[in-house]
């Protein structure tokens, strides 16, 4: 009988942890990520409003579309999903962000610096959101570290580094937001 009492306490605790992780912590992570992206988007808006760049400039609209796409689909950005896209998705090397990058490099120093900084902040927030708070990512990183320490050569087609993960996310966000352009009954947050 003592066993069942202990098991009952354990099960209540496990259910509580389950609720805390999936309904509290998970939502909090998404909101935090969106908050960071809203901050970047607002900074860009202020930069454009102060005359730094035109509102219809492709360099501005692409970055705004990117942040909007990532904000909108933040709930889909999980480590497993990104891992699946990187491994099995059609990862095109010539994507819209590369064209954006080439365009930005030809801009005046002040504009280039501002846009590249915003882009870096978006990439950093995305990487942090996907990797830093995922227990599965921690396990994978530990395994990767262990494999690296043992100097085992693993032949596998994976990403070259964190930069590629950001590139995949950005391309996905731009494609998703251009696929769904339906305003229906939603406020323009």
């Amino acid at each position, binding site marked *: *009988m003592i*066993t*069942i*009492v202990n*098991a*009952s*306490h*354990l*099960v*209540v605790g*496990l*259910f*509580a942890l*389950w*609720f*805390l992780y*999936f309904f*509290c912590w998970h*939502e*909090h992570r*998404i*909101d935090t990520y*969106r908050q960071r992206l*809203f901050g970047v*988007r607002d900074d860009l*808006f202020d930069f*454009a*409003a102060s005359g730094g760049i035109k*509102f*219809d400039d492709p360099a501005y*609209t692409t970055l*705004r*579309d990117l*942040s*909007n796409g990532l*904000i*909108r*689909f*933040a*709930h889909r950005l999980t480590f497993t999903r990104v891992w699946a896209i990187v491994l099995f998705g059609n990862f095109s090397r010539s994507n819209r962000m590369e064209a954006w990058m080439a365009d930005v490099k030809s801009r005046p120093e002040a504009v280039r610096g501002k846009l590249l900084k915003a882009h870096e902040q978006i990439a950093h927030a995305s990487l942090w959101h996907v990797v830093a708070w995922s227990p599965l990512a921690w396990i994978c990183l530990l395994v990767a570290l262990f494999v690296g320490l043992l100097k085992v050569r693993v032949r596998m087609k994976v990403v070259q580094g964190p930069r590629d993960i950001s590139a995949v996310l950005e391309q996905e966000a731009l494609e998703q937001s251009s696929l*769904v352009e*339906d*305003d*229906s009954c*939603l*406020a*323009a*947050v």
Partner: protein
Amino acid sequence: MWFSLVGISAFFYLSTKSLAGHYTFADIGIKVMGDFKISEAFSYLFGAGGVGYGLRERKLRRQTTERLAHRNSTLEQLVDPNRSSSHLTSRGTTNPEDRT
């Protein structure tokens, strides 16, 4: 998410399976409540209180977002009439249509 819930339920089922026919759920419930220590009660209260506080804070934040977001987007549209949106709800939560 649902796999872990099934796992916890399976664990509970397996741990109570051996008692089938010996005790009723009422027996188990009385025993659990009877063994409840004051320190455990405070632990549960602390945990539930913390979660409840967090949920109330979240609700308040979303109400604030709802109150301020419309004003912000209206003002920004005065500056940029073609201003694009993230398509979140007015409370800053995920669009139900995007959940699928």
